[in-house]
């Protein structure tokens, strides 16, 4: 009897937590399918309406989403590919090749992970010295590599790739790069997928740094386009939320089918070791 009550409470707790977690997504959907007039009523309307396409069209006319999408894909794509390659290559060297100073390099990288996020000011001054303001270089080049990427890839290599495997590849005459390319990369696939999603997600969602260095319409990213819908003159709730909703949808479309692999990949990398 007592046990049954415990189970009931456990399920109740899980269900309430899940509803609270998912509800704001539903709310985004509700507002983006209603008019602002409906959103500005008390009590608020809590069922979806039929205004989605009207809101979408309105958002489309108020921001250049095509350019923004194109820019975002270039930025996020370049950074993701670069991080996968450079971080896994460096992690392979740090995990499985012997050379002087590798422990120092790794310690340096990990210690920056534990530091509070650095101020954007020095980076802004550096980037403006290179004359990259209002250019996608400003949002791509500083993020081509990342400390977290190396840390995560090193964790994966250490758990998934035994030193014996590398040793035997060398006995068979493989050079180091061949070992990395033919043996490490294929085994590392789940880790690479996790890093790819994290990196892509972070770049896709970022708007503070882009808003500092990208002022022109022609270089704006998706989050900047959404932010632009919410200006001092515009209090059009349905419009802004529709913008936020359509930039969230692609991430949900990636996340939901792969959530299981992604979540376990993320925890494996961050907790082990």
């Amino acid at each position, binding site marked *: 009897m007592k046990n049954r009550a415990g189970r009931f409470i456990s399920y109740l707790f899980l269900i309430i937590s899940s509803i609270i977690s998912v509800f704001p997504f539903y*709310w985004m959907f509700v507002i983006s399918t209603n008019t602002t007039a409906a959103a500005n009523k008390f009590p608020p309307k809590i069922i979806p309406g039929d205004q989605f396409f009207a809101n979408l069209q309105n958002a489309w006319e108020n921001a250049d989403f095509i350019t923004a999408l194109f820019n975002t894909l270039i930025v996020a794509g370049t950074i993701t590919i670069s991080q996968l390659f450079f971080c896994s*290559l460096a992690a392979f*060297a740090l995990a499985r090749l*012997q050379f002087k100073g590798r422990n120092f390099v790794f310690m340096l990288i990990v210690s920056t992970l*534990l530091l509070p996020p650095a*101020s954007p000011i020095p980076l802004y001054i550096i980037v403006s010295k290179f004359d990259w303001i209002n250019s996608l270089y400003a949002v791509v080049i500083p993020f081509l*590599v990342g400390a977290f990427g190396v840390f995560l890839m090193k964790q994966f290599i250490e758990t998934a790739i035994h030193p014996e495997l590398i040793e035997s590849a060398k006995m068979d005459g493989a050079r180091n790069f061949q070992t990395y390319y033919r043996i490490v990369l294929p085994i590392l696939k789940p880790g690479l997928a996790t890093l790819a999603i994290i990196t892509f997600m972070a770049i896709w969602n970022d708007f503070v740094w882009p808003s500092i260095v990208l002022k022109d319409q022609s270089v704006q990213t998706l989050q900047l386009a959404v932010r632009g819908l919410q200006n001092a003159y515009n209090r059009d709730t349905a419009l802004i939320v529709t913008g*936020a909703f359509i930039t969230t949808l692609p*991430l949900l479309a990636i996340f939901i089918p792969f959530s299981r692999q992604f979540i376990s990949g*993320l925890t494996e990398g961050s907790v082990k070791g």
Partner: protein
Amino acid sequence: MEAHTKQSKKPKFKYGSQAKKDALSGYLYVAPFFILFLSFGIFPIFYNLYISLFSWKLFGAEPEFIGLQNYIWLLTDDPTFIKSVVNTFSIWIISTIPQLFIALVLAYVLNQAFVKMKDLFRMAIFMPFITSILAVTIIFNSLFSRDFGLINFILGTEGLDWKNNRFLAHFAIATMVNWRWIGYNTIIYMAGLQTIGKDLYEAATIDGANKVQQFFYITIPQLRPIILFTIIMSSIGGMSLFIEPLVFLDIRGGSANQGLTMFLYLYETAFGTKYNVGYSAAISWVMFVIIVMFALLNWFITTKVIKD
């Protein structure tokens, strides 16, 4: 591992040996990463220290060296900064403590053998983490609206002004933070729980300990390293909070700075209207010291409170 290292040491000094090739490849493979990381990750940290010693305005006159003057102003003559420190700690307390506790309980419940559809619950709870902070804040803006907000409707508190009352604004911001991070911490704790041996729980059950006792006397002590990790990370994250108040209120954290956090103050000083990067850099170093001290304090308290 030991044996392997010893073996590969033997042929180290032969010309063109594997050891030499390994070292050369090692440097080559780390180099591109390291050069980029040094230029855009490490150098800016020190460059920031240099900037903080100047009276330096973006788009203004030439920077002028003023030594520690920015720090002196900041620490002795800036009530706005003090206010931002108080706000930051206030929001941190009402976000981190419930956040980590709820995550821990959720992870514990989700880890029970009888729970079905674990994947579905995990996915639902983790979903907030993948959303952009911008979208999150826009939605909570609507939910916490004074005149048309769903929260006021549900609570029956018509006309409650979540933005302009200092404590309510902190509460609203903390809610956004909690919503976004509870799932993430739950997942981290779940991974930790899987490393705890079942025999500990079995022995406790035989000794007559109930589930609540098991949670406090077995789960929490066993998870200590992971709890420490999440406390340190959420101290750093919470102390650096600024996007939520920036979007929920404005760049000054509201008309009376009621939601101005340290990082937001830093941001406003540099990119708001003053473009005072020298002063802003000084704020970031003071902030840095506060965060490190606070993280160490948390670490100390946690290790004292949770004993094996």
